[in-house]
Each structure stands twice: as structure tokens, then as C-alpha cells.
């Protein structure tokens, strides 16, 4: 079986509590799961302000700012894609068949900030 482990948190608190994980710790854990042979994919996401929602209704694509899924909508699947920029990602998202009945939230993946690797991502 494959399982998807979804990380939810209050973004305001995720990086500010005494118990908050640091990026090094997150990376170390991901590596440990990888070493055990069980990691398929894992990424941190950029903050919710970077989210864009795509819907296709009666053949017309609408693009809106924000992660505004309807409260009735539940997570049904995911695509992780490599795209040149947001426009290309949005075009791919609009092609996902479920976009005709649901919403596709498009959010950039965030590079973990680990000093040794000098990654250029931003804080979440």
C-alpha cells in the first residue's frame, strides 16, 4: 500500500512555537525515511499566500488568488509537477479532469533552508 501523510498546521505558529520543527530536523527525518526505503516523495510547501486556485466550469478556466476550496470539498488527490513558471503550472492544473467539478490548489514547493546546502528557499 502507498499512503499519503498530509501535514496541516496553523501557518502563523508552524515556525514560532518552542516545539516547532527546524528545517534541518525536517530534512533529517525525510532522509531517515528515505534510507529505510519507504519514502516516495516529500516536500515542504511555500506559505498559503502563494496559493492560486484553478477551476474549470462550462469549459472556462477561472484563476483566483488564494486556497479557497469550498468547505464541502475534501482532498481527493495530488499531482507534483515540474513547470517553468506559475502559468505553465496553472495550465497543467486546468487540464486535471477533476478541475471540472472541484478545485485545484496550486502551490510552489519550498526548498528547506539547510545551511550546509545553502538552499535559496524562503521561510514559510
Amino acid at each position, binding site marked *: 500500500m502507498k499512503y499519503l501523510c498530509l501535514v496541516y498546521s496553523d501557518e502563523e505558529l508552524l515556525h514560532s512555537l518552542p516545539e516547532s520543527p527546524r528545517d534541518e530536523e525536517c530534512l533529517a527525518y525525510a532522509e531517515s525515511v528515505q534510507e529505510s526505503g519507504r519514502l516516495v516523495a516529500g516536500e515542504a510547501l511555500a506559505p498559503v*499566500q*502563494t496559493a492560486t486556485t484553478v477551476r474549470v466550469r462550462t469549459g472556462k*478556466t477561472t*484563476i*483566483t*488568488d*488564494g486556497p479557497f476550496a469550498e468547505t464541502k470539498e475534501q482532498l481527493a488527490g495530488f499531482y507534483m509537477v515540474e513547470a517553468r513558471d506559475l*502559468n505553465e503550472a496553472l495550465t497543467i492544473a486546468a487540464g486535471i479532469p477533476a478541475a471540472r467539478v472541484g478545485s485545484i490548489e496550486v502551490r*510552489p514547493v519550498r526548498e528547506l533552508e539547510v545551511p550546509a546546502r545553502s538552499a535559496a528557499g524562503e521561510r514559510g
Partner: protein
Amino acid sequence: MSARVHALVERIYRDESRRVLATLIRYLGDFDLAEEALHDAFMAAVDQWPREGVPDKPRAWLVSAGRFKAIDRLRRRARFDASQGALAERLDEAPRGMGDPADIEAVEDDRLRLIFTCCHPALPASAQVALTLREICGLTTEQIAHAFLTRPTTVAQRIVRAKAKIRDAGIPYQVPEATELSERLESVLSVIYLVFNEGYVASVGERMTRGELAEEGIRLGRLLLDLLPDPEVMGLLALMLLHEARRVSRTDVAGEPILLRDQDRGLWNRTMIAEGRTLLGRAFASGEVGAYTLQAAIVALHAEAASVEQTDWSRITGLYDVLVQASPSPIIELNRAVAVAMRDGPEAGLALVDALLARGELVDYRLAYAARADLCCRLGDNERARVAYRQALSLSEQLPERAFLERRLAELGDIVASENIVASENIVASETTPPHREEGGAASS
């Protein structure tokens, strides 16, 4: 230090800074870095041009200077952040093959790239407008706040967040593909019209009309029409031309507004009106009539009427009825109320204006009170007219408009006031009823 060179730098800043910025954003890939670079480039011009003379191609010089200054900045920051150094090296090598900054077409493309990036639908609509007015038109957050009927801090926050999203979500600096263009157009049109309006009726400051911005809006409209001959682009350009054609007649030498009734219609630019008419015809012929085309049709009826009395208020009201359906907005409803007052009498108009004010959306909108004051005057209710003029005055920050309102207040009781100029959408009518004399008269004001 040459005053002449300083005046020239100022003029070039006014004329070229937004174009230079648009190109710098393409080179540097970052709004804030490009803004700093623009500032540095003009500082360098002020320093060097008086000594070394003004370069042949000032814009190209400024773009080049800005780029080098940005690379310097990144190298200085590289002491603290290695990634900035890598970026500096990349930028240092990038310009080959990126085009000549003096190439006018490339520069115009940069402005369009900037427009479509600022108007990207992944940004909130309010941020699209704020960002465009700030980046493309160089307006201050205060000016934008007035155009939006909101506070400067709110606007500043919208701009900061929008830039962050452009950077962090990877919104590209490009004109959309033809397949996406029409969907992306709607927000661009609304932004251009706001730009034009900021020029047509400036919300703050000493002058009521600022021709450069209105011309900028029209220029952006023409540019967009070249790229995309969409009926609503025609409608918007027609609307702007039909307004602009009458701009000179709208203010006196002191900059105070002249009522529509008193405007010298001989000053109206017939060539511009004809061009607007032609575009309007093309837009209607397409069979797709949108909100801008409807507004242009209303303004065309004003522009072609020989006088206020001979204006077809029934057709204007009918067009407003359709427009309120197509594009609901309290300001359009206010304009409709004034048109109804012209068709059916001031009482009918006043009832609509009061109902609008009661809904709360226009309580901070000065022209709603000015319209109310006018209608009260026409009904002979000078007491309520004075109250409404004072409310309008307390909300107006535009000096000529304040002078106009103060004069109205002073005259009240002697002369019955007439029309107002409703800012963002349209012109409003003039009354035709004869003056009433009230007991208190001007003495009590």
C-alpha cells in the same frame, strides 16, 4: 551644476521612469531590485549628466546604469548571502541577446509584460490595480487609496503582498499566450480605465485634471487594441477618447470645474469624438456589448448633444439600466440616479440617491453628497442642500473641487446649483429648473 540639466532629468524621470522600470524588471527579474536600480540610475544621472553632458539615448543610459547599480548591490549583499553573488554573476552575463534598451518595440513590450504581470489573475483584484498604478503609472499609495476609496496603509500592504506572490509563486514576466489572452484581459481593462480616471479626475492635489495620466491610459488602450482587437478594448478606448475629447472644457483657467451646462461645446475635440464613435460602432458591430461599450455609448450621447436640454436622457437612463445589470456598482447606480433625475425630475433622482446612501457603500464618497446637494437645490430645499454640500466638502481633498463646493455653498440661496461631475464613471447632468429664492438665503451660510 546646471539648472537646465536638472530640469531635463526631471522631465526624463517623468516621461521615462516607468519605461525604464519595466525594462529593468525584465533584466533583473525582481520588482524591488528594479525599483532600487531605477532610483540609483537617476541619482547617477543627476550626478553625472551636469558634468559629462546628457547622453544621446538617455533611456538606454538609464537602463544600463540601473542594471550595473543592481549588480553592485547584489555583490555587496553577497558578503552576507552567497546566493546574491550567484545572482549578480548571472545578471552580469544576461544582457547579451536581451535586446537593445533603446529599441522602442522592446520597451513597449516590456510595458505590456509589466501590465499583464501586474494584472495576473493569481493576484487579488484589488492588488492588481494597486500594483499597476504604482509600478506602471508611478502613483503614490495615497493617490491609489483615493482611486480605490480606501486607506493608504491598505494599499501599501496589498502592493507588498502582491510583489511577494509574484516572486514566491513564480508569476512570469510575460504577455500571455493568445489562448489565455482574452481571459486575462478583463482585469487589464479595469486597470487601464482606473489609470485613465486618475488622470481625468485626479482625486488629490491642486489640479483637477492631469492630462499626462489620461493620455497614458489612452496610450495603453491603443497599445492593447493593437495587440488584441477585442470589442471591449474598442469600447474602453472609445470611452476614454469620448471623455478626453471634452477635458479642456471641464475646468476654467483657475482649474475649477465648469458645469456641463456651462461648458463651451465648441472646445470639444471633434476628431477625438469621431474616433470614439467609430470604435464604438466597431464594438457594437461585433455583437458582444460589454460594460465599457455601454458606458462609451452613454458618453457618446453627451458628446453629440447640442446642449443639456437636447440630450437624450431617456436613452441614457435606458443604457444605465442595462449597465447596472452588466456591471453592478454603487457609483454607476449614482450616475443612473442623476440621469433619472434629468428624465423624471429631481424628486425621483433624490429618492434613488438617498436609498443608495442608506445602503452605506457610498457614505464616504463625496460626489454622492454633491449629487444630493444638487438635487435638493433643484427641489428648492436649500437647507438640506447646504448640509449635503458641507458633507461633500468635508470629504473632498481636491483644491479646485473644494473651491467649487465652497462657492456653491456661498451662492446657495441666490443661484440654484446644477450638475456635478461624478468622478470615476461619468459626467452627470445639469438642471434646467429656474432659481428659487428661500427665506434664509445666503445669509445663513
